[in-house]
Each structure stands twice: as structure tokens, then as C-alpha cells.
């Protein structure tokens, strides 16, 4: 909303600068976006002049050489190009050095050999209109040399204000003036709607036209008046300047008046040409479903039944307007006055007023104690009453309660006690609210659910050199196809693009996109992770509960932790880079699972976007926690990445659920020594390390407290088709030192178990 300050001051002038008025409004809830200065620079350079003599330029047909009295001793010579300049006119003159509205500075110039010292002004040259067909001719009477600013509004300040949607009343100059009045208590000028024009004639408006509201739900009230003998022409300078400064183009007196009234009081209104209203009848009704109509801007639009159409007796026509929502009360006395004054019109007596359900004023009460309880401070009762009075609420103090009547312009916004509290608080000044802390009964500040674990896991990956990314939760259906994942997806109905039309069921596409982006920018080797939600359907979205969902969630959302490694460690002058292969990434996953402290295992095989021979499923008991593996070469090709690239993704919520509430308890490892033994096991190539470990554990029984695979050997000493695994075994009994015999016995049992899987101990 653009509010010209001179216009605002015509209703409320608190003796403050434009900046100070802006501060007052900002702190009352109407925020200044920008303060504009419009019109000319220093107004002292603009004076009234009288054309003493106007003669054709000797060398130019279209120029006139004028002698202009500017109040100084000698007349000044000004070459003027306007066709309407003539001797005897009182005109507006810019002196050399004047700064024009566009910021340019007027100099002295020779025009076809004649020196011109100044400029006779057209209205567009001082920003009070758009007309450039001729110079402005002022009314006689103004003294040559007197300030032009006394005659014309050539310079102004404009407040560009941000009006919140609850304050349509402040979308008007008078409404803003009321706010200034409420805060500063400076007097507020009379309601511009209060003054009415004198009707003339014996007929009545209802003789000329009628108005029907077909659906009172969509239009509360529609009022009309009839004018005859309207003379259409340009508006006067003051009106044009106000419209221009407020951001409206002047068009003609009738249109300008309707716009001016709307800018003044916020009431939308429209001038209908009665000769073109078929049947002289205006009908306001709901649009039919998909009804089409050509609007005033010449565009054919389609409407739905939420829109009110203004039609005439024969239906929608070019006279039609559209009304966004409800129309309330019309207060258009200004129009009446202006129409009569500026268009020489005759106001036909009477008002056509379709107002099917007259609204009653709303009564709202404010308990002073309640206000103090909400604000945390008390406000003097006289001030409360004063504020509400200046805002138009007609407050009446009754004991500890203030009873009010909400004015029509605040009816939609102020309906309850809390709304009145806000009114008083914002005008009183939020800067006067004290600063305290709440009691915080039973308050425990903490992370909840999986958050503490997630933080530790994210830190662990960060500390191992991974960069955290944040990628969009949307992905392209095509990306999921390239990952060969199928299954139900959650689609957005109104995506910004097809690329962002599906909610991702896993983090991998975002990690791959980020890896590709960085590879394209010269960073092919890196390690990334993301910790975020993933989304799967949980039943049909169309079967949403009709009432409150009572805590239900519309989709199956989980929180995943995913990592992608294209290079595990960089190379240097004496070391090679560590590739982002399965085992490098497995080390990261082991750290994550180790921190969580869950009993986990990997099982061969994983989702289809992984290398089928280098893929594993992460399990804990029967629960599936996620996957780990090198990416399938065809997937890598789609993302322009080079093998090996490995990744893992785990369900952080499931992981946290396994650890929640578990507390580590002390194990005695110092009182009795353990026995460490290294063994080498030769097994056929196809037997996995996990199978060997399982056999060793089966043979070792309870006394075997730990097994670690620490070496792998293939070669001559074990023969083709076999491999040798080196394992470190730790034997321990909780209550005694183990004897050699006991350990030997266990080793024999381990050998027997290994034999079952085709393995043997190597000497």
C-alpha cells in the first residue's frame, strides 16, 4: 500500500516527519517497506511565472521564444516547445539547476541559436500527471516568483506499507490515518464518507435502476447511486498527483474518482455506464461452475461458484465486474461530492441499497485482569479506554471490564477478547512489555527419540572425513527407475517440475546427484552422508479421515542415515588413494553400528542398484536395518561416476529402537587373565569368513570370548581353490584362570567344527 504523506497528513498531522510517522506505524503493526520521495528535488527551484511575450522561434517552426516574468527584476528567456503556450498565461517554471523527478538537473541551453534559461512545465514533468500534450496553465492570481509548491503538489513523500491480511481497513489512506491517530492521539479528520452531496430533481434513483443480490452468502450488501449529465474529462492536478503518488494512473475524472475513493476509504466501487446496463438492472450472483466471462481487462476467464459476478438483466456482460469475496458496507459520500464537483453531474435523489441481511454491530468485552495475565504487565485503565476509543471501538468501562462495539471496518478481525488484547498491546507499544522467563514447571530440556543417537552417528561420519549434504526430499521418477527400484511411490500433485514430483523412498538419489555435481566440478574423490526423512505410502491417501486424524500419520516416514564413498582416503607422494570400495565403506558402517552398540551382521545380497556380488543386507536379529555395497556399474554410468563407488543406508529409527533404554554394565576383565591364540584356517574359497567364524564360535563355546579375522592368504602354500584365514581367538572364563588343558580341549572342538565346513587348521 502506497500512502502519500501529504494526503495522510490531510487527515492526521501529528507533527512528525515522514520517517517518524513510518516508525509509529511499524511499531503498531503496519510495517514500512520503503520510504519513497516522489516529484521534484528542491522545490525552491520551481516558481510561478507569467508569460509576458511569446513569439515564434526564428529558426524552428515548433518552438516559441518566451519572455517570462519570474518575479526577478529582468524577465527570463525560455524557449518552449509546447503548442499551447501564449502570452498572458500564468505557468509553472523550473529554474536552471532544478532537479527534475527523474533526477536529472536542468541546465541552460541554446536551442537553435536562442539561449533558454529555464523550462515552462507540463504536468508529467513534475510528476503530477501523465499529460505531455502541452504546458500547464495555472489559474491567474498566483504571484510571479512565488513558490510553485504553494500551487501544485510537486514534491511528496510516500510510505510504502506492508499491510497484513487481517487489516483490510489499513488498505486505505484514511485507515492508516486512523492508526496514526490511535498511536499519537493527534486529532483525526472527519470521516470522508460523512459528507454528502446535494441531490437535485424530483425523480429517485430507483426510477432509473435496480440492484438484486441473488445470493446473500456471497454478497452482503450492494449500494448504488445514479448521476446524470456527467461530463467526462481529465481530473484536476491535485487529484492526479495523489493517484500518481499512490501508484495509480490517472485516466478520466469518473474513473479517477472511483479509484480515489477506494484509496481513501478502502471501499471498492465501480462506475457503471447506465446506458449500457441492459434492463437497467444489476444482478449479483454466484458464478456457475466453469462459467466463462470477459472481464474489464478484455481477458476471457473461467470462474467457479466461489466468485461473485456482477451481471445485468441479461447476464454477464462487458459491464461486469468480479468481486473477490464479500462486500460489506458502502460509504461513498465522497463519490457523491466529487462527482458533483468534478463532473458537473446531477445526483439523482435516493440510494439504491440491496442489503438483505443487515449486520449488527459486534459486542466484545475485555477483562482488564485477563489482559494483564496474557501480557505479563498492566496497562493504565484510562489508556486502555483511550486506545480503544481512538480505534473506534466505543469503549465503556464497567468495573474491571471494558465493553466495546467493534466498528464495521474491524468486524472480521476483532471478534474476541484476545483480539482486543492485541489492539491495546500494539497501540500501547510492545516495547513496554517487560522481559521475564516462564516458570518451566516439569520442563526437561533434552533431545528425544532417535535424536541423541543420530547426532553421535552424524558426528562419527563427520569425524571420519565425510561431508554432510542436505538434498531435496523430492526426486525424479526417472531417478528411481535408474536405480531399478519399484514399488509404490508418493507423488506430489502439483510439483514444480517432473524432476521433483516424487518423494524419495531412499536417500541414495540425493547422494548420487551430489557426487555427480562435485565430480563435474573437479572433486571426483569424496565421501558424503545425509541424515533425513524418507517416504513411503501407508495406505491410500484418498481415504483420509474426515474428522481429526487423532495423531494418525498419512504416510510411512522414516529417518535414514546414508553414506556414499567415491574415495575413502586421498593419496599422497608415498601412498595411494584408498578406493571407495566395499570394505572401505564397511569400516564406516562398522563405526556407526559400533556406536549404536547393536549386535549386527551382514548377509550377502542386497537391493538391485548394488553390484550383485558386492552387496550385503544389514541385520540385527530378525530386523533389517539397511544395506551396504558397491553400486552397480550401470547405475554408476547413469550418474557419470567411476567404479568402485560404495554406499550404505540404514534406518536410524530402527537402529535407535534397538538401543533405546539399554545401559552398558560392567564386565570384569582384569581379575582373571584371558588366553590369546592365533590360528590359521584353510578352507575352500567359497566358504565365507562369516561361516568360518560361526564354526569357530560353535567349537569355542562359552569360553571363547572373542574372534577377530586379521589376515587372508591365497597362494601356493594352501593350494588352488582354497584360502587361509588368520584368526585371533580370546578365551576367557569369568571366574577362573583357564588351564592349558581346557584351551586345548576347545581347540580340538573348533577343529571338529571346521572339518564340517571343509576347513582345517594350518600348522
Amino acid at each position, binding site marked *: 500500500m502506497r500512502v502519500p504523506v501529504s494526503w495522510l497528513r490531510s487527515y492526521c498531522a501529528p507533527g512528525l516527519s515522514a520517517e517518524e510517522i513510518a516508525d509509529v506505524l511499524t511499531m503498531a*503493526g503496519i510495517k514500512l517497506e520503503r520510504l519513497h520521495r516522489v516529484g521534484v528535488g528542491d522545490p525552491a527551484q520551481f516558481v510561478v511565472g507569467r508569460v509576458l511575450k511569446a513569439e515564434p522561434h526564428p529558426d524552428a517552426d515548433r518552438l516559441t521564444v518566451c519572455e517570462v516574468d519570474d518575479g526577478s527584476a529582468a524577465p527570463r528567456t525560455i524557449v518552449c516547445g509546447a503548442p499551447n503556450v501564449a502570452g498572458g498565461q500564468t505557468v509553472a517554471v523550473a529554474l536552471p539547476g532544478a532537479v527534475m523527478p527523474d533526477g536529472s538537473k536542468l541546465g541552460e541551453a541554446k536551442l537553435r541559436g536562442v539561449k533558454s534559461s529555464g523550462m515552462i512545465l507540463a504536468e508529467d514533468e513534475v510528476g503530477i500527471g501523465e499529460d505531455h500534450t502541452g504546458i500547464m496553465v495555472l489559474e491567474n492570481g498566483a504571484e510571479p516568483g512565488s513558490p510553485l509548491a504553494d500551487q501544485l503538489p510537486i514534491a511528496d513523500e510516500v510510505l510504502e506499507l506492508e499491510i497484513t491480511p487481517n487489516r483490510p481497513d489499513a488498505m486505505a489512506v484514511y485507515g492508516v490515518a486512523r492508526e496514526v491517530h490511535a498511536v499519537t492521539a493527534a486529532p483525526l479528520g472527519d470521516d470522508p464518507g460523512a459528507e454528502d452531496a446535494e441531490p437535485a430533481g424530483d425523480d429517485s434513483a430507483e426510477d432509473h435502476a435496480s440492484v438484486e443480490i441473488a445470493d446473500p452468502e456471497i454478497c452482503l450488501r450492494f449500494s448504488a447511486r445514479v448521476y446524470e449529465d456527467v461530463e467526462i474529462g481529465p481530473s484536476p492536478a491535485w487529484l492526479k498527483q495523489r493517484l500518481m503518488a499512490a501508484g495509480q494512473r490517472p485516466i478520466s475524472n469518473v474513473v479517477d474518482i472511483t479509484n480515489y475513493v477506494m484509496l481513501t476509504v478502502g471501499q471498492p466501487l465501480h462506475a457503471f455506464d447506465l446506458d449500457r446496463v441492459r434492463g437497467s438492472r444489476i444482478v449479483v450472483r454466484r458464478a456457475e461452475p466453469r462459467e466463462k466471462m470477459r472481464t474489464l481487462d478484455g481477458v476471457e476467464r473461467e470462474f467457479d461458484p466461489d466468485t461473485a459476478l456482477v451481471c445485468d438483466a441479461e447476464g454477464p456482460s462487458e459491464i461486469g465486474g468480479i468481486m473477490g469475496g464479500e462486500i460489506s458496507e458502502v460509504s461513498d459520500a465522497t463519490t457523491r461530492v466529487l462527482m458533483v464537483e468534478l463532473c458537473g453531474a446531477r445526483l439523482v435523489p435516493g440510494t439504491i441499497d440491496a442489503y438483505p441481511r443487515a449486520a449488527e454491530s459486534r459486542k466484545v468485552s475485555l477483562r482488564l485482569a485477563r489482559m494483564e495475565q496474557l501480557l505479563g504487565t498492566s496497562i493504565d485503565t484510562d489508556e486502555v479506554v483511550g486506545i480503544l476509543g481512538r480505534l473506534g471501538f466505543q469503549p465503556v468501562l464497567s468495573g474491571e471490564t471494558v465493553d466495546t462495539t467493534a466498528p464495521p471496518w474491524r468486524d472480521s478481525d476483532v471478534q474476541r477478547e484476545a483480539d482486543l488484547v492485541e489492539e491495546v498491546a500494539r497501540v500501547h507499544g510492545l516495547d513496554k512489555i517487560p522481559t521475564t522467563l516462564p516458570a518451566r514447571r516439569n520442563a526437561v530440556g533434552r533431545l528425544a527419540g532417535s535424536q541423541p543417537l543420530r547426532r553421535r552417528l552424524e558426528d562419527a561420519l563427520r569425524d571420519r572425513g565425510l561431508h554432510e549434504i542436505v538434498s531435496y526430499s523430492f526426486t525424479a521418477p526417472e531417478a528411481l527407475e535408474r536405480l531399478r527400484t519399484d514399488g509404490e511411490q508418493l507423488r506430489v500433485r502439483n510439483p514444480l517440475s517432473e524432476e521433483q514430483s516424487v518423494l524419495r523412498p531412499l536417500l541414495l538419489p540425493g547422494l548420487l546427484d551430489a557426487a555427480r*555435481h562435485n565430480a563435474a566440478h573437479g572433486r571426483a574423490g569424496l565421501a558424503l552422508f545425509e541424515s533425513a526423512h524418507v517416504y513411503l505410502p501407508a495406505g491410500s491417501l484418498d481415504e483420509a479421515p474426515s474428522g481429526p486424524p487423532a495423531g494418525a500419520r498419512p504416510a510411512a516416514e522414516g529417518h535414514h542415515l546414508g553414506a556414499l564413498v567415491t574415495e575413502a582416503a586421498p593419496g599422497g607422494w608415498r601412498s595411494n588413494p584408498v578406493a571407495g570400495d566395499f570394505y572401505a565403506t564397511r569400516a564406516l558402517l562398522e563405526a556407526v553400528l559400533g556406536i549404536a552398540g547393536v549386535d549386527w551382521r551382514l548377509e550377502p545380497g542386497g537391493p538391485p542398484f548394488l553390484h550383485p556380488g558386492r552387496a550385503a543386507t544389514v541385520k540385527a536379529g530378525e530386523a533389517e536395518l539397511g544395506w551396504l555395497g558397491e553400486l552397480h556399474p550401470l547405475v554408476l554410468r547413469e550418474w557419470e561416476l567411476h567404479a568402485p563407488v560404495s554406499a550404505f543406508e540404514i534406518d536410524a529409527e530402527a537402529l535407535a529402537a534397538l538401543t533405546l533404554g539399554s545401559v552398558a554394565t560392567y564386565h570384569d576383565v582384569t581379575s582373571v587373565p584371558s588366553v590369546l591364540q592365533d590360528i590359521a584356517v584353510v578352507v575352500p574359497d567359497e566358504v565365507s569368513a562369516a561361516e568360518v567364524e560361526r564354526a569357530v564360535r560353535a567349537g569355542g563355546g562359552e569360553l571363547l570370548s572373542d574372534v577377530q579375522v586379521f589376515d587372508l592368504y591365497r597362494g601356493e602354500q594352501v593350494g588352488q581353490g582354497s584360502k587361509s584365514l588368520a584368526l585371533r581367538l580370546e578365551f576367557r572364563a569369568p571366574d577362573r584362570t583357564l588351564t592349558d588343558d581346557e584351551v586345548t580341549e576347545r581347540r580340538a572342538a573348533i577343529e571338529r567344527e571346521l572339518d564340517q565346513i571343509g576347513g582345517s587348521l594350518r600348522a
Partner: protein
Amino acid sequence: MPDLDQLRSEAEAAIAAAGSSAELEELRVRYLGRKAELTQALRSIVELPPQERGPAGKAANQVKQALEAMLERRTEELEASELDRKLAEDRIDVTLPGDPPRPLGHLHLVSQIRREMEDIFIGLGFAVVEGPEVEYGYYNFTALNHPPEHPARQPGDTFYLSDEVLLRTHTSPMQVRAMEEQEPPIYIVVPGRVYRPDTPDATHVPMFHQLEGLAIDEDITLADLQGVLVQFARGMFGEDTEVRLRPGYFPFTEPSVEVDVSCFNCGGKGFIGSERCHTCKGEGWIEILGSGMVDPNVLGYVADRGYDPDKVQGFAFGMGIERIAMLKHRVPDLRMLFENDVRLLEQFGA
């Protein structure tokens, strides 16, 4: 008895001339070994007449001790110089680069700021809770006092999955969910992703992060809201930060307030020297969040969970995490935070 003086001077000269520890060992055997002249002499003292034994033994022992001390001193000297020589040979080019370290990892700037916020509010007694991003219109709008015709519900402002299911446009739906789950008093903050169909530009992206706050008890006031936000702002932006409440409008708070903090870049002056401050654009204040007293209509939706609007009251606030990250760390373009370019990621969150 040998001539002890001669023996001593001869041995001392030899020890002084020795050039290696091997030579010294040889000399030790020659002059102090079992078969050495001096050892023999000491051993044969018993054969002397008793009155001569004392002086002879004393003299011989003096020589022995002197030679032992000199040998030891000389051994140390030689070992030291041998070590120096060896160390000189072991010299390396210390100007070559070290082994490449594992690259320093980084949290994303959004995570870093989110954690900073969470930690400040944890210190103030707020629990951190999270909620779903795929949400019902009921929680995102209806229970937050948005009438059915509210413009924010339009598909131009909200991503929809079905008529009733949408991507949450703010973290506020967790206000109602949390109150359904927990009776008052309640003190929570809710970080998370939110979504709006904004065409990306320097200040808009379709997905960003917010942190919501909610405090409900019998006696929580607007003054308490100001107090909590002052604590937060000082924790986030520095001890000298001031907070300014300005009236605002949100459907689910009444009174509603916009919250500005004094500009941490120019100290609230609006100018740095004669230059207009870029961070606050010369205003001295920066708008960082929206808040207010929870609207009685919102409490009405959970009245049966103990939130009778006549008995309990409180405040709520919500702020954009990216906005604060960008202001504090001077990131010029919101889109950069979602490109995941390592050159940006490396600058924050180590």
C-alpha cells in the same frame, strides 16, 4: 710394582686418542681387564710387606679409579658423536608434504545452525521433538485456525498429495500433534523440513527448514515470550543482542508479534562507518521470526487434552533456519545451500 705414573699417563694418552667405542673397549681390557698390569699389581699387593701394602694399594686404586672415570667419560663422548653422525645420516626433507590426512568432514551449515538452536532451547528447558513432513490439512491448517478459504491453502502455496494430504508448509502442525500427545505444561521446540511451491531464486527454494517453539502452562505471558527470545537471540547472535517485538499477524497466534534482533553486523547502528550495513540494509534491526500468544481457537482443538483456553495459555514461535544461517554466515543465495557443492560444505560445520 709397575711404575704407576708411567702406566697412568700411557693409558690416559691412549684413551684420549681412541676414536671409537670398539677401541675404548679394547683399552679397557688392556688396562683394567683381568690380565692387565694394574689388576695384576693390585692382586699382588698381599705379597708385599704389611707396612707397604697400604700406600701401594691406595696408589694403585687411585690410578684404577681415574682410568675408569676417564673411560666412562670418553665412552659417553664417543657415543654422543656417533649418534650425532647417525642422526645426520638419517636426515629427511622436512619440507615434503605430510601424509594426506583423512579430509576433515563437515556437518551441513543447516545442521550446524539447527543444533546451535536446539542446544540453546535445551538449555532453556525445551524438549526437542519432531513430526511428519507428509501431513494432514487438519494439522497444517484447520487446527491452526486457518479458515477453509485461507489463501495459504491454495495449490499455489502448498504441495498436495491428495485433497487432505500435503507437505507441511511450516513446522507448526507439530504444535497440535504435540499437545494431543502431552498434557500441559508443555515446552517443546520442533526442527524440520518444510515445503512451499516457490520457484527457486536467491531467497526462495521449495524446501527449507524451520524451528518451531511452543510453551503452554497456566501463566505464560507475552513478557515470557520476550524473555525466552532474548535468551535465544543472545545465545545465537551474541551477548549484546537486543530484541524488538513488533505487532504482526498469523492466524494461529493472538496477539501476534514479529521479532527483530539488533543487527549483529553493525551493532544495531545501521551503518558501518559511513557505509550502509548490508546485513540489515541500514535498518539496524533484522526480522528473524514470527511468534505470538497461542490463539484460543488453536487450544480449543485440544481442549479435551487439558488445554482449556480459559485455564492455560502460552506462546509459539517459528523461524527459518536457513535465514539465520545465511544472515550469520553471509551466504548470499539460498539455492547454494542445496547444491551440496563441497567447496561450500567445507566452509562450515567442521
